[in-house]
């Protein structure tokens, strides 16, 4: 029996807390890269407008080009919680393989190795690497021991407003409780037939079928959240 595929990576901290990280695939990362490159080009051309005139300005421009090209991702990743502007927009974040934030060492390494990932043209090697690796790591990530994950928004606690709170007839496991709350939360978006079909499935819990079961489930969910 092969394991169920889930994009998440479970990390267990020494305190026994399970962290679920979701590594981000090449498509989303490519979009973040495009945003970053676009922003960089815009700011560089704006700066060129300011500094461009004189010879000294052009010299400084070249320095700024070099420093900003290499410094931008590093500085933003170290001081911006692992996010460049593009990654921030796309909801991505760079972390170490153990889920900790990246430091100077990791960020510098992974960004210097962009050169290797760039080969032979426009990140061909990096793309190939990401497609092969289970956590979508490019060469720089492999060397620096980092990965790019989705920055999930914190889940809102569900609260069921209608229904009479009612205790459960027998204890449910946390997964089952979650499924029950999920069902009640998503029920309005399901078709009527499907809602009743699912309510029928919950017959062992509600000792009823159809609308009666549905109302019971709503009451149980209200009892769980209130």
């Amino acid at each position, binding site marked *: 029996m*092969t394991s*169920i*595929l*889930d*994009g998440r990576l479970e990390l267990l901290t020494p305190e026994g807390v399970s962290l679920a990280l*979701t*590594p*981000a*695939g*090449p*498509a*989303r990362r*490519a*979009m973040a890269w495009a945003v970053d490159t676009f922003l960089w080009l815009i700011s560089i051309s704006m*700066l060129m407008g*300011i*500094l461009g*005139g*004189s*010879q*000294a*300005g052009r*010299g*400084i421009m070249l320095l700024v080009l070099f420093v900003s090209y290499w410094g931008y991702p590093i500085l933003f990743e170290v001081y911006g919680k692992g996010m460049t502007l593009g990654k921030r927009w796309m*909801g991505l974040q760079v972390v170490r393989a153990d889920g900790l934030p990246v430091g100077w060492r990791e960020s510098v390494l992974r960004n210097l190795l962009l050169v290797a990932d760039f*080969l*032979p*043209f*426009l*990140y*061909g*090697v990096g*793309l*190939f690497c990401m*497609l092969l690796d*289970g956590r*979508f790591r490019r060469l720089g990530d492999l060397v620096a021991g980092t990965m790019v994950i*989705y920055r*999930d928004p914190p889940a809102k606690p569900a609260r069921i407003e209608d229904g009479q709170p009612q205790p459960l007839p*027998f204890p*449910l496991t946390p*997964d*089952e409780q*979650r*499924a029950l709350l*999920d*069902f009640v939360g*998503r029920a309005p*978006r*399901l078709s009527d037939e*499907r809602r009743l079909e*699912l309510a029928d*499935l*919950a*017959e*062992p*819990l509600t000792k009823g079928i159809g609308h009666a079961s549905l109302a019971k489930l709503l009451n149980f969910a209200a009892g769980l959240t209130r």
Partner: protein
Amino acid sequence: MKLEHLQLDLRPRPYWQAIDLGYALLRRNAATTYAAWWALWGPLALAMLALTALLPLDWNWVPMMLIWWVKPLVERIVIYVLSRAVFGEAVSWREAVRAWPGQLSGGWFRVLTWWRPIMLGRGLYQPIWQLEGARGAFAKQRRQALGRRGAYGAASWFGVVCAHFEFVIELGLIALLGLFISDPGAANPFTLFAMNAKNENFWYPLLMLATYALAAGMIGPVYVAGCFTLYLNRRAELEAWDIELAFRRLAERCGRFGKTLASVLFVTVAGLCFIAPAPQAWAVECEPPAHVARMLKARGEPQDAEQARIRAQVDEIYAREELRSYECKQGWVPKKKDEVANKETAPFWKSVFDVLSALGDLLNSAAGLIKLLLIMAAAALVFWLLYRYRHVLEKMGLLRKKALPELPQEIAGLDIRPETLPDDVAAAVWQAWQAGEQRAALALLYRASISRLAHRHGIALPKGATEGECLQTAQAALRAMRLNEARYRVVKSVTEVWQAAAYADRWPDGEKVRALCKHWQADLDQVEAAS
């Protein structure tokens, strides 16, 4: 369709994470999927290559267009393989190829005509025809339902990105080839495009087609897999597959309970009901809120003992949870966040920009100064680096460990400090010689010679050096041009005379000593004597 056999965890998740699940699904079934894809795509690419070779050069874009145009039909074989793999059913690529013609009905006309150039997210809709068998108006309804809430947008963006991936791989392959061609500039794939535009070479269109076929052969299944997992995720969200699975598992668990453990469970549950403490025991006690405290304070001191007793009773009654006007709850309160973290970044960037623009004006006028400063900073940096890494230079032998070794005090027991010598050495020697103290005279002369060598002419003499070694060192210095010929000759004759006298008891005559003194005075004693 048995949901129990599902190989994916289909809880609702953001669409991009659902798309990323496609890579994992594809990776798990990579061998079959790619074999099936290439079983169709490979012959097609070969046929198009042959067509390119046959067609006149002006028409070489046609096969490229053709293979690109029919790609949506080839994609259906990937959907066939993955849709079975996702429920744990393994199909071989041969079965997939045999089943492929039967997968084409439904939507094929649409996909091959006006949809082809514009519908980048077609991968999300293909399974509706192929797997659900929906047609016509119903298919349209399904498409609208599945594409809602930004799902189609995500699929389209994924299509855009995958098209770029194909392009990147195509360019990468050409650039890789260019690295091995000795033509300067061949490593830049864009020069190839420029050359190709002139339609001059027979090989260019073939190369373009071959690289495109390879790139699309790599990325095509990736696109289909990503869109397919998005489709599955969307359906699971709409039809609550994950909840159905959870309820089925719950029913299974209850069934097991009911048959085997019912009696035991009943006893346990019944027992628990009796033992279970009353819920009030869990109630949380807390300080009364401000308005209650204020009210209690406002009634003032009790008039007499009777009122105090009644008040105590009333307070006790009102302190009960059912009657008091407030509720005590235990909960988490967020800590006060660091003020710095909340600071807005926008004004900061604006100010940085202002400073930069002001700096730009300043720089233009002060260009010369800045240039000078930059050069000075660079020079300082170089010196600092040299200083910082001086031990490396020492190790490499580029820098002598000590520029000036300490001047020796004595050589082989002879005190050679200049201050111990008489002011006029030559005269003192001659005087001693005439006084008959021949040994003392020659000893003084030798000692003075070594002293002058070490202290005045900078010859580094080893501490325990014998007369012969001193002479050898002087000879080496002569060869290295650090000592001139005349001085060396004086040192040599002094050493020889001294050695003959001291060890062989052969004494020179007065005339020779006198000449030696004269030479010594003229050559060795004077720093700037030799020109």
